[in-house]
């Protein structure tokens, strides 16, 4: 019976321990880069599923260590809508290699994306780890490199690394959001919203533009991680940011 832990598994445990010790997101990102570098991967990105507040690709990027030019091109050319890897992440449960992604024949851009990533940015191999929650697709992580260890054990290790890095990331993000206090103006605007005033009313009361009121409310909603004005009021009362 095996009583010794194999090399790959030790790498996974070591990485998981370091993720747990990372006390902020930049540190976690460094630990994750180190962990995947031992398999030959230099690039990574982690994208959350589209949500009510976060629909733009930029807002959904949770971690990004990408070649700068690639990111610009990807964003400005709206590659996310055509990227066959991104499409696979949304529907698959298990970790998969870019090489195992079917490229749709009817979308020429899909093929170009794969070609450009290889020829211009040296991303020859990729491995993706989908993260699924109780209600389906939650986030996806993609690792990319030129010369990689593609052994079955390496990919199984990278899957664990992806899952545990994401878990730490989610916890760190949660802790950050908990700390993000509202500004005085956001609190003021929410107090008038709680009193039943519209954005137009509030703008008149505070002598600021309706647009500005809406911006403060949107910012408060992001900080409170809620999806409506009513929820923002309820949540800010719960957190003691405004009094009932």
């Amino acid at each position, binding site marked *: 019976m095996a009583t010794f832990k194999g090399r790959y598994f030790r790498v996974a445990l070591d990485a*998981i321990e370091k993720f747990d010790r990372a006390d902020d997101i930049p540190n976690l990102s460094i630990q994750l880069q180190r962990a995947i570098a031992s398999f030959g991967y230099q690039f990574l990105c982690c994208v959350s599923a589209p949500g009510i507040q976060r629909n733009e690709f930029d807002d959904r990027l949770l971690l990004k260590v990408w070649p700068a030019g690639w990111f610009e091109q990807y964003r400005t050319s709206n590659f996310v809508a055509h990227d066959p890897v991104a499409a696979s992440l949304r529907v698959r449960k298990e970790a998969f290699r870019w090489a195992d992604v079917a490229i749709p024949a009817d979308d020429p851009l899909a093929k170009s994306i794969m070609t450009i990533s290889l020829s211009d940015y040296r991303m020859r191999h990729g491995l993706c780890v989908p993260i699924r929650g109780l209600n389906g697709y939650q986030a996806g992580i993609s690792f990319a490199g030129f010369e990689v260890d593609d052994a079955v054990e390496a990919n199984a290790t990278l899957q664990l690394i992806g899952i545990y890095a994401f878990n730490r990331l989610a916890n760190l993000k949660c802790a950050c959001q908990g700390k993000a206090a509202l500004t005085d103006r956001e609190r003021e605007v929410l107090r008038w919203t709680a009193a039943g005033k519209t954005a137009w009313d509030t703008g008149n009361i505070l002598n600021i533009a309706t647009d500005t009121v809406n911006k403060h409310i949107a910012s408060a909603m992001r900080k409170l991680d809620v999806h409506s004005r009513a929820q923002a009021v309820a949540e800010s009362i719960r957190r003691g940011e405004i009094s009932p």
Partner: protein
Amino acid sequence: MIRVIDRTNRHKFIRTLDQHFRLRHEVFVKERGWKDFECDGVYEKDQYDNDQAAYLISIDDHENVVGSFRLYPTTLPHMLSEQFPMLIEGAVPQRSDIIELTRVVICRSQRGTKTYFELFLALQEYCLERGICGVTNLVRTHRIPIVQKAGMTIIPLGLSKEIDGEMCTATLLEVSDDILSRMRRIAGIEGTVMEDQTRPVRKIA
């Protein structure tokens, strides 16, 4: 509400236990296609469904079984030690304060609901009460983030391998008061989820 059934009280809950074996058949045989453990075309049972097993069963307001899992001592030959030792790198944990969790099941209509949280809150409560500090479990790898999101601490015991077409990982779930409080906070559930079995049973369930 979670009902604990083991050899000391199974005579009182014959109907609940029967329904639970039927639910397992519904999910593991009909839905997931396991053929080896089919019993009479109605139940799903294996060699670990014996006197040593304990069942934690989620019951709805109408006394229907909506979810369940099975616990088994790791000091005895158990599923991980006998069927899947190759998924563990190192020795299979076999200790009186570690038990094995198997056959986690939730009926289709209750998936993604509080039932999931109640079952796993019950696991923590059950273990804390009995001085159990860890739970070994073979889990489908893609479910690990769900377990984590519910507030549990889950440690891999080896790399994932394919079993019957699905990637699975042997894991250890930690048990502690802190984890129980964290899970309660996430689930928005206060207090115990366990049935009070000291109260007289109204009817044979």
